[in-house]
């Protein structure tokens, strides 16, 4: 039943593949970097030096050049609709590469690696692999690509989470991540299969056309929707698909935690947005969808649940990493708010929020690492009196936390401002959900402030007043991150213009 294609067709296929490859350079470059790193690792066997790290940094930095070259290229599909190239994807390419760079920097600062593992081995290679996977997540326009890229990210994630082989918590994290991730992706793929069954298409644009044209049996559709959502939700770590994240975040090496909580979450959002906007045909106004499925209320439930659950449970945490994990759940909720609005402003707000989250969350984790380097603990009680011993770290952490709460003059405040503005442009429609967002952010103030409270308001149990002064490099990095948090809190035009520029998605025009 399948007849072989004719020569002319083959020529055309080859031609388009060649054309597509031209638009695929950053990914190819990164894959090459991945290989290179493995080789370098083999060469520099066992020796503990920053060779790998430096190579990774340079390599990643180099990749930005290729990404930059993709500006101005016409948005379009490549590889027969498997993959798209648009500003939206570009944004995330930058985002992931940058986050990988920061992750590497953070890793270099973390002394736990020296204690836990003999050699950095394939660690950096995995980081890069994850970057590739995430970039593809952000750009894939076909169920198959989506699945593959997600799995790529997940697998690297599993390994990174369990990178401290001898550390029970790390291994436990890996196992939980693995099981939970496998199940969710399995469910998602099952959902895909149903969608494929309904529409006979795997390209999301075609799917939406198909659905718009013929509609579907809504019962099957909701089933498929829920299953797919389970997969996406697991990536963005939103309630009720969040269960893995606290344990994994707590157990994994801190740089990995930071990386997961920022980058992989962002990747999940990229995917969700593309799928939600493109694959689902929407009616004129957000609430009414052509399919009988009320995606909006689904996402609303997710977002409200995430905001409330994340913030409320975070109140009880005694371990800073775990606390930040719960807070990241809450932030997933805030990000979902931006998606709900489902217009160009909402997208812009979401992207902006991702950027702000990138800065402040990495900053926070960085300080956590520096502190645990000195104190060897991530418990709140061990933070007592640190404000005096490590003034810069303390100040920086305070700034990051304030930004996470969303108080001016920090970038976090602007993020919240834009999200809520996006909600309120729809008049009173989303007022109540905005109110919940506000309420929960008040709650969040409390547990975030617990950290400065311990650092400044309480005396350390071991009253040795010798200051723990940091090395120069970490100080500079901290200072830079802190400055950025404050600077973009006051002059956020560049970021938000970038977000605006990137809020264009192939296959759909948001009003």
């Amino acid at each position, binding site marked *: 039943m399948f007849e072989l294609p004719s020569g002319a067709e083959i020529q055309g296929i080859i031609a388009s593949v060649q054309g597509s490859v031209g638009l695929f350079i950053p990914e190819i470059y990164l894959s090459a970097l991945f290989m290179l790193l493995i080789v370098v690792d083999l060469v520099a066997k066992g020796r503990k030096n920053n060779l790998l790290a430096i190579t990774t940094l340079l390599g990643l930095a180099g990749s930005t050049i290729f990404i930059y070259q993709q500006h101005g290229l016409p948005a379009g599909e490549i590889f027969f609709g498997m993959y798209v190239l648009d500003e939206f994807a570009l944004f995330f390419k930058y985002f992931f590469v940058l986050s990988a760079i920061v992750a590497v920097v953070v890793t270099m600062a973390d002394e736990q690696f020296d204690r836990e593992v003999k050699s950095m081995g394939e660690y950096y290679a995995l980081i890069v692999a994850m970057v590739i996977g995430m970039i593809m997540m952000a750009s894939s326009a076909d169920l198959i690509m989506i*699945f593959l890229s997600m799995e790529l990210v997940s697998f690297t994630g599993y390994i990174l989470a369990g990178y401290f082989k001898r550390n029970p918590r790390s291994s436990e994290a890996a196992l939980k991540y693995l099981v939970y991730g496998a199940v969710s992706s399995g469910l998602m793929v099952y959902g895909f*299969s149903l969608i494929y069954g309904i529409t*006979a298409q795997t390209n999301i644009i075609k799917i939406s056309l198909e659905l718009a044209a013929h509609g579907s049996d809504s019962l099957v559709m909701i089933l498929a929707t829920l299953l797919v959502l389970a997969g996406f939700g697991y990536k963005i770590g939103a309630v009720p698909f969040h269960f893995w994240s606290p344990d994994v975040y707590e157990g994994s090496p801190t740089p990995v935690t930071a990386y997961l909580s920022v980058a992989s979450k962002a990747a999940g959002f990229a995917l969700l947005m593309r799928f939600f906007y493109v694959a689902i045909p929407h009616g004129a106004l957000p609430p009414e969808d052509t399919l009988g499925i009320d995606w909006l209320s689904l996402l609303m439930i997710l977002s409200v649940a995430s905001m409330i659950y994340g913030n409320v449970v975070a109140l009880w945490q005694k371990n800073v990493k775990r606390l930040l994990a719960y807070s990241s759940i809450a932030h997933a909720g805030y990000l979902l708010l931006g998606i709900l609005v489902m217009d160009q402003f909402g997208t812009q707000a979401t992207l902006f929020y991702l950027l702000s989250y990138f800065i402040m969350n990495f900053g926070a984790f960085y300080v956590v690492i520096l502190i645990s380097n000195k104190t060897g603990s991530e418990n709140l009680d061990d933070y007592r009196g640190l404000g005096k011993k490590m003034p810069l770290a303390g100040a920086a952490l305070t700034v990051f936390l304030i930004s996470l709460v969303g108080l001016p003059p920090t970038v976090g405040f602007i993020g919240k401002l834009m999200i809520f503005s996006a909600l309120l442009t729809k008049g009173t429609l989303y007022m109540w959900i905005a109110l919940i967002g506000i309420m929960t952010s008040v709650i969040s103030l409390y547990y975030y402030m617990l950290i400065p409270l311990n650092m400044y308001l309480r005396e350390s149990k071991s009253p040795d007043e010798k200051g723990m002064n940091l090395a120069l490099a970490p100080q500079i990095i901290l200072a830079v991150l802190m400055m950025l948090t404050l600077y973009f809190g006051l002059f956020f035009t560049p970021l938000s213009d970038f977000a605006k520029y990137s809020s264009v998605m192939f296959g759909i025009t948001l009003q």
Partner: protein
Amino acid sequence: MEQLTTIGLNHYLTISAILLGFGLFAVMTRKNAIVVLMGVELILNAANINFLAFSKYNGGMEGVMFALFVIVIAAAEAAIALAIVINIFKIFKSVDVSSIDSMKE
């Protein structure tokens, strides 16, 4: 009658649904990590059956391709999973998933 004699789409779907159910059941109830992972495999294969069936009845090769990729992914997953489980066994001297809960709340 015709329903019984000729195998139709619904049969495949039913099988895959049952398979999915088994997989989930295994994941949720079994204690042994290996068995849990087998459950995951079942889930993936349930999806595979769907893809193939739909591909057969809708025409078009995407389903087949998808199934192929899923199989590959499953293999890779199994590899990683086994590595992790072995590591777990090294540390905890057991592969009882339900007993590994040092991090909670």
